[in-house]
Structure formats: structure tokens, C-alpha cells
């Protein structure tokens, strides 16, 4: 029974119900005695009025007892907190049963998933509804099926067919959100003719899209009820972050993977193992290369770094796996690394020999630099036979270092190279001339028109002319002490162009022997490779994770879940934002990657300090009891004044 009393000890006052009867009994036991003459009038009156007075006495006794009883009950403060929804009034109503079928609804409680429990709750709740109830049944993932065609949402005009449909309802466990299906709901509710409409959402609240504004907009169309499937006691370790320090490694280069494990459940988890699995190819399980024991108390996180060295070039799916718990969907995370034999750089022109030496000082370096003195001829010969400009002579050049584009043919080859994802470093040296730079689409900084064509420029002239003509989408990476730009980057196609406003060596300067030259050159190229090769992964954003509620151990306030199943309302509907830090994922972009089937369709659920407080929906009965008591009291006064008149 869901009836509670705010002051239950006052219920002892119900003994007072017997007081009117007791007073009446005592009163009749000790009468006044009067010697009376006019007995004939009394006899006539009693004979005529006795039945009425007796009935009236019993009625007034009952009323007085009821007044005391209701008053005691009202003082005790009864509150009705139904576990099921109260019966609505007669008349037609439309009830839309909306099921959250996201991944978190897979959590099992007593061998049943949250979704199945929610279905059972819905079936029980339907038993409480009046016969003139029409039902609609939807899941969050129905947005994929319905789209904007809300009319195709089935409506069940009798309970039996609705129950059958509900039993056959299957979850998709997709990542669709309440926000996505909200327009569908609004359109559907607007078209319903029933005077009373309500939406019953069966959810565990594991959605980042429960914003107050959305709920408020839906409440314009119908009353909303959030029904929690079950009690929460979750044993859940979540692999909330898994990433590699780099996306591209050379063979033999040490790789590092960072794992962050959080206990997002409500109970401590026993010792479990974190495994690192390296896949050897598409659709294969892979090999466990590391297994580390770990314990994470409730509400805490641990970060672990796992090293590994790849010996063969190729693409490797890397998996981090935790032991099983209540929610298995967040126990695995995947990433993809590319292993290359080495990074190959083509250095064109005599001035680039310093760059080549810096990139590959010996044979063990992951970068192999090749010098080509007769570059214009060799570049044309090597590239023009291949349509795919990112590969030269069957071997990919990861970067090309030049001092100038020599002619239109070179420029066209380099344009294709950049579109295909190449990295181009242009060191402007003494041999730099201005042949046709205005016609190059990818040039990050043009030279001014006053400069005469085919004339060799000095350093001062170059910097003076280009500092005023940097393209809007270019980025200044390095500047000198006078804020004159030295290195400018521009992305073009899938590749990038770096313009360095000075020569790589003498006679203009001695930067190549400066201590910062070598680290700068390496970092620039590695970052460029990382960025270009891992572009799809880069666009997805952070590592997805599932955050489970933690009502007891989180002082910072996660979700304040109720202790028991029931009907709850959200008191401040306009201010609730769950997980404001969560970012939208573009899974479609990631699906382009060839191992898309490894990626779980989970909801990004970053941590949040905001609280969602569920207030159990209650009905205060004591005001009505006071009204009833006062009404009976007034009635009693009225009877006492007029009752003797018969």
C-alpha cells in the first residue's frame, strides 16, 4: 500500500472516535428526574417522534465519530504515493507508451533486462486504465522507422491488441535519443482527437537528452510520466577512455595506449582484468598482448598505460577489454592504429639536404629522407605515371620538401599530391622565384604583384611581400621576434602545405644548426601525419562511455535515483540538464571506416555534476480530509440548531 502518514503517531488519536458514543452512554446513564404532570402530551409526542429522533441520534453519533476520525486522519497527514498511476476519469484518453530502448536498458536485474521489466510494468499499468483508452506504443529507435510520417504509428483502440503489441515489442538497443523522437511525439499527439492525452516514458534515465526545455515542450501536448523500471543496484565498471598516443607508428616504434577505468556502478567491484587485444586483421578476434589486474572502488577512476611495439606494417584494431558486469556494453573500447615500415620524405633541391640529414640521421630512424637534386625532372617522371598522387613509384612519400615550384607541371602534380593527403614543406631559399604563385590554389601566402616574375628574391623581400597576403584560412605557426610570420600552414584537400619564410640552410641563416630545428621539424611532420591519417577518428571526438547512476557514493551528485520503483515527477522541469558536457558523436563518419562493426552503438554519457532529482509523485489527502471534517462539523452545527424541529 502506498499510503503514508506524515505523523503516523497521531493515528493513536483514532481511539477518540469512541468518545461521542462514550459521552452519550454516560449521559444516558445519569439522567435528571422530573415529576411530571402533562404525561399525555409527552406520550403523544414520543409516539409520533421516537422513530425519527432515534434515527437522527444514530446519524448524529455517526457524524460526530466521523468528525473526530477524519480530524485525526487529517492531522496525521496522509499522503498517497501510488506505485501505479491513478485511475483517470471516465472518457476517452490517449496513452502513448514510450520505451527507452537504448543500451543502458540492457542492464539485467534478476535475469531480466530493464526493457523487459519496463514492458511488464507497462502491462500492469494498462490493467489500471479505463476501457476507453487508446494506446500508442513507440520506442526511441522508432524514429528510424517513422521519420516524419507520424501517421504510420500504430494506434490500438482496445487493450487486448495493445497488450499483444506490447508483448511483441522488441528493443533495438540503438543510440537514438528522446530528443530525436520528440518532434514525432509532438506531431502524433497533435493529431490525436482524444481529450485526455498522456505520455508514459519507461526509461532508466540514461539519456543525455533529457533537457528541461524538451520535456516542457512535450508537456504542452500531454501530461508526462516518467516510470522507472526497477531498483538500481548496479555492478558496473566502465572503460571510459581508451586512446593511443599516436595513430600512426613506424615498425618497431614504441606505441602507448591509455586506458581510464571508472566504477560507475553503485557497488564495489571485485578484482578484474584489463586486457589489451591486438587484432591482426579485419573480422578477426586478435591476440591478447597484455593483461593487468585492477580494482576500482565505487565512484573512482584509474588510468593505466599499456606499451606495445608493432613489428609488421598494416592497420591494427586495438581493443581494451574489462571483465563482465551488469552492463557489458561499456566494457570494451576500440581504436585503430596504422603501422608503416617507415616515413618516407622526398627532399627536392640542393638546399634541402640539411632537412634530409635532420630527418634521417641514420638507417634506424623511422623517417627515411631521399634527396633528389634534379627534382623537376625526376618529380615529373615519377608522379605523372600514377593517378594517385599520394604514392610515388609504388611507395608512398609521406612528405615532400621543396624550395619552390618550378613550373606549371610541377604545380599541377603537387596539387594532386596535396588533394590526396600529402604533406608539402616549402622552404623559401635564395633560389625562390615568383613564376605563377597567384595561380596556385594551395599556396598559403601569396607574393605581391609588384615583384617581377622570374626574379630571384632575397629573404627580406619575401617576408615583406607575403606578410600582407596570408590567406584567410591559413594558420601562422611560427613568428619571429618582430611578429613577422615565419611558418604558415594551410590545409588543402586532404593534405597540408607548410610555407617556411626562410631557407633551410645557408646563406640566409643557420636555422638548421639551431637546437630547436630538429624537434620542430619532427613534431611538425608527425603531427601532420597524425592529423591527416587519422582524420575520421579525429572527427568523432572523445571516447564514448556509459555513465551509470550512483545515488549513494557520489558527493558531487550524479543522478539521484529513487530507492524504489514508483511514479515520479520532476519538480523543476525547466532547469534539468543531464550531462551538459556530453558531445554528440558522428557515428556516420566513423562507419566509413572499414571495421565499423566493431564499434558499439553506445550513448556518449560523460560525467556531469548536475543532478536530476526525481520526486515521488504523491497526492496529499489531508486537505480533502480537512474539507470533509469542516463540512461535517458545519452539518453537525446545522443539525443541532434545526434538528429538534423535526
Amino acid at each position, binding site marked *: 500500500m502506498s499510503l503514508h502518514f506524515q505523523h503516523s503517531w497521531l493515528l493513536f488519536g483514532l481511539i477518540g472516535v469512541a468518545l461521542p458514543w462514550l459521552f452519550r452512554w454516560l449521559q444516558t446513564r445519569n439522567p*435528571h428526574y*422530573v415529576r411530571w*404532570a402533562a404525561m399525555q402530551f409527552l*406520550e403523544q409526542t414520543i409516539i409520533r417522534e421516537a422513530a425519527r*429522533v432515534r434515527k437522527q441520534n444514530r446519524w448524529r453519533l455517526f457524524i460526530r465519530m466521523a468528525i473526530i476520525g477524519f480530524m485525526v486522519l487529517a492531522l496525521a497527514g496522509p499522503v498517497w504515493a501510488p506505485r501505479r498511476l491513478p485511475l483517470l476519469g471516465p472518457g476517452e484518453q490517449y496513452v502513448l507508451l514510450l520505451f527507452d530502448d537504448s543500451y543502458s536498458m540492457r542492464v539485467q536485474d534478476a535475469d531480466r533486462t530493464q526493457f523487459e521489466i519496463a514492458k511488464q510494468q507497462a502491462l500492469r499499468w494498462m490493467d489500471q486504465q479505463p476501457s476507453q483508452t487508446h494506446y500508442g506504443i513507440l520506442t526511441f529507435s522508432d524514429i528510424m522507422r517513422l521519420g516524419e510520417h507520424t501517421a504510420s504509428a500504430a494506434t490500438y483502440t482496445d487493450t487486448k491488441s495493445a497488450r499483444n503489441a506490447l508483448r511483441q515489442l522488441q528493443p533495438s538497443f540503438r543510440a537514438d535519443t528522446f530528443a530525436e523522437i520528440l518532434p514525432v511525439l509532438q506531431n502524433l499527439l497533435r493529431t490525436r482527437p482524444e481529450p485526455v492525452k498522456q505520455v508514459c516514458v519507461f526509461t532508466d534515465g540514461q539519456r543525455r537528452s533529457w533537457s528541461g526545455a524538451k520535456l516542457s515542450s512535450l508537456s504542452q501536448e500531454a501530461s508526462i510520466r516518467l516510470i522507472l523500471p526497477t531498483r538500481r543496484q548496479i555492478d558496473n565498471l566502465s572503460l571510459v577512455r581508451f586512446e593511443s598516443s599516436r595513430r600512426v607508428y613506424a615498425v618497431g616504434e614504441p606505441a602507448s595506449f591509455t586506458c581510464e577505468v571508472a566504477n560507475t556502478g553503485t557497488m564495489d567491484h571485485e578484482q578484474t582484468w584489463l586486457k589489451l587485444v591486438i587484432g591482426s586483421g579485419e573480422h578477426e578476434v586478435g591476440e591478447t598482448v597484455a593483461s593487468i589486474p585492477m580494482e576500482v572502488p565505487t565512484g573512482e577512476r584509474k588510468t593505466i598505460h599499456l606499451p606495445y611495439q608493432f613489428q609488421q606494417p598494416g592497420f591494427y584494431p586495438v581493443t581494451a577489454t574489462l571483465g563482465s558486469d551488469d552492463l557489458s556494453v561499456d566494457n570494451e573500447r576500440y581504436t585503430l592504429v596504422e603501422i608503416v615500415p617507415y616515413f618516407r620524405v622526398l627532399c627536392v633541391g640542393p638546399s634541402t639536404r640539411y632537412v634530409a640529414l635532420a630527418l634521417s640521421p641514420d638507417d634506424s630512424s623511422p623517417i627515411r629522407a631521399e634527396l633528389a637534386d634534379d627534382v623537376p625532372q625526376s618529380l615529373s617522371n615519377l608522379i605523372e605515371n600514377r593517378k594517385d598522387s599520394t604514392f610515388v613509384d609504388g611507395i608512398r612519400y609521406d612528405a615532400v620538401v621543396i624550395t619552390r615550384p618550378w613550373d606549371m607541371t610541377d604545380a599541377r602534380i603537387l596539387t594532386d599530391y596535396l588533394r590526396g593527403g600529402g604533406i608539402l614543406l616549402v622552404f623559401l631559399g635564395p633560389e625562390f622565384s615568383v613564376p605563377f604563385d597567384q595561380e596556385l590554389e594551395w599556396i598559403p601566402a601569396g607574393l605581391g604583384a609588384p615583384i617581377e616574375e622570374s626574379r630571384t628574391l632575397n629573404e627580406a623581400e619575401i617576408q615583406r611581400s607575403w606578410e600582407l597576403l596570408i590567406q584567410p584560412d591559413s594558420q601562422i605557426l611560427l613568428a619571429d621576434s618582430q611578429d613577422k610570420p615565419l611558418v604558415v600552414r594551410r590545409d588543402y584537400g586532404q593534405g597540408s602545405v607548410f610555407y617556411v619564410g626562410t631557407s633551410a640552410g645557408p646563406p640566409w641563416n643557420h636555422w638548421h644548426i639551431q637546437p630547436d630545428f630538429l624537434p620542430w621539424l619532427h613534431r611538425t611532420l608527425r603531427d601532420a601525419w597524425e592529423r591527416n591519417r587519422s582524420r575520421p577518428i579525429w572527427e568523432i571526438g572523445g571516447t564514448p562511455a556509459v555513465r551509470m547512476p550512483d545515488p549513494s557514493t557520489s558527493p558531487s551528485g550524479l543522478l539521484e535515483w529513487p530507492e524504489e520503483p514508483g511514479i515520479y515527477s520532476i519538480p523543476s522541469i525547466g532547469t534539468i540538464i543531464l550531462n551538459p558536457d556530453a558531445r554528440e558523436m558522428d557515428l556516420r563518419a566513423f562507419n566509413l571506416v572499414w571495421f565499423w562493426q566493431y564499434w558499439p552503438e553506445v550513448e556518449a554519457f560523460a560525467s556531469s555534476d548536475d543532478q536530476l532529482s526525481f520526486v515521488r509523485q504523491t497526492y496529499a489527502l489531508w486537505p480533502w480530509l480537512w474539507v470533509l471534517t469542516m463540512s461535517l462539523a458545519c452539518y453537525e452545527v446545522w443539525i443541532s440548531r434545526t434538528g429538534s424541529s*423535526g
Partner: protein
Amino acid sequence: MQSAFSAYRYVDAEFLAQIERLDFMPRHYSVGWLPGRHHSPFRGTSVEFAEHRGYTPGDDIRQIDWRVYARHERYTIRQHEGETRTSVHILLDTSASMDYGDPSKFEFAVRLALGFAYLILRQQDAVSLWHSGEAVGLPPTSGPAQFHRFAKLVDQLNPKGKRRVSKVLEDVVHRVPPHGLWIVLSDCLESIESLEHALQYTRYRGHEVILWHLLHPDEIEMPFTGTTEFVGYEGGRMRFQPEQFREAYRTSVERFRQKLRLTCHSESIDYISPDITEPVVSVFTEYLTQRSYHRHATHP
């Protein structure tokens, strides 16, 4: 006189002194053989001229009006109004129910009866006393000694028994000469039908009737509260809460009084229902004053 009445329980010399100047005259003609103060339907020897009629042999020639003869040479008899004594019968209810109140209804009735007897005897009329008790009544007689007999008999009476005054009235009224005057002092706590019958029969016998309906204010209003057990003077008991029946009781009493009042009005019976908590002398004086006023109004 005070010393003469001091032996009687109910006789109040002061009360008698206050009422001795009042007149109590019957509304109708009195029929009697002895001369008195009251109008008779017959011609008599009073000084008040009534009419002339022709002489018929056998008439007393002393009654011939010789002045008329001198004028008209015709013998004419001069007749005068007849005046006679009247007999007043006082019927006193001595049933147990008359004992209610302080002073009781019986005491109030006795003082009224004594007042009436005193006045009647002072007018040389005859008075009798009838009651509903066991003792024998007092036959109608005039003279001062009758008052002593009246007072002595009243002293012997006590309110007890269940005998109804209507029964007594029906038994006695045919034993006295007609055209008398009955003063009934009772609380009339009996069947309204028998009471009406007795009064109508009395009127049928040519008597004038004055009904004093003596009810205590408590018996009209029933002002008790709380659970009360009523024990009847003449038997029976009831326990209830008076406030629950008060209105119905008042309605019942008022209906009875109204019916009795209408019966008396239709039979030309004086119906008086005084407040017995007031002094007897004021009730008595007020009644006689009003009666005298109405008599002069109807007989100027």
C-alpha cells in the same frame, strides 16, 4: 375577619380584602326563587320598569297603573324586571397532576375558588363546591357560613387520584338546577373529546361555564435539557433528551389548547389560561375587570 379565616390553610385575608370591592355577575339571566341581584327572565318586583300589559282577571289589582287608567280608562298592569339570586358551582380538579409546580396548580386553583366563593357569597348568591376527589361536595347555599364550610372542605382536599374533571362534571351537572354558573378549575389533562363533551353537556343544561385552564409554564415550554426521566404523577415514566422533542411537544400542547379554546368559543364559554406563576390576586382582578368591561359593553 382575619381572625375568622386564620384557621384555614388556603384562605388569605389580605387577598380577600383586595377583591371584596369587585363584582362577579353572570353574563346570562338567572333563574331562581329567591330574590337577588341578578336579572331574571321573569317579571318581578324590582324597581326597574319592564312593560305594561292588559289586566286579566286574577291579576293583583295593586299592580294596576291608575295613571294609565285615568288617561285611557283602561286597566293596565305595570310590570317590573325580575331579580333573583344565582347559584355558582365551583368544580375543582384535585387529580394528582394538579400537584405540579411551586406553588402548585392545585394551590393556585384553590385560591381562585376561595376568591370566587367569597365574592359570590358577598352578593347573597349561593355557591357550591365540587371536586374530583373522594370527599363529598358542598351543595349550593348562600350566607356567610357557607364560606367557612367552603374553606373547611378545601382544606381537606389534596391533589391525588386520577379522576377526570369531565367525568365529575357530567355526573354532577344534572343534579343541580339548570341555568346556574359553573367555574371549572382544572389543568384539563385528559382526553379533549371527553372534556368537550362534558362542557357541551353543561351548556346544554343552560349553565354558564367559566373554564380556568391551569397549566404551569414548564408544562407549556418544557425547558429541560440533558437526558431527563419524566415520572408521571398519575403513573408512567419516560427517559429522553427534552431538547430533541421540545418543539414537537410545544406543538402538541399548543394544538390541545387551541382546540379547547375553539370549543369554548363556540359554546360561549369563558376560557382563561393564566400564568400560574403570577400572583393570584392580579390574575383574579384582571379577569374580573375584563369580564365587567365586557358585560357593560354588551349590557349598557
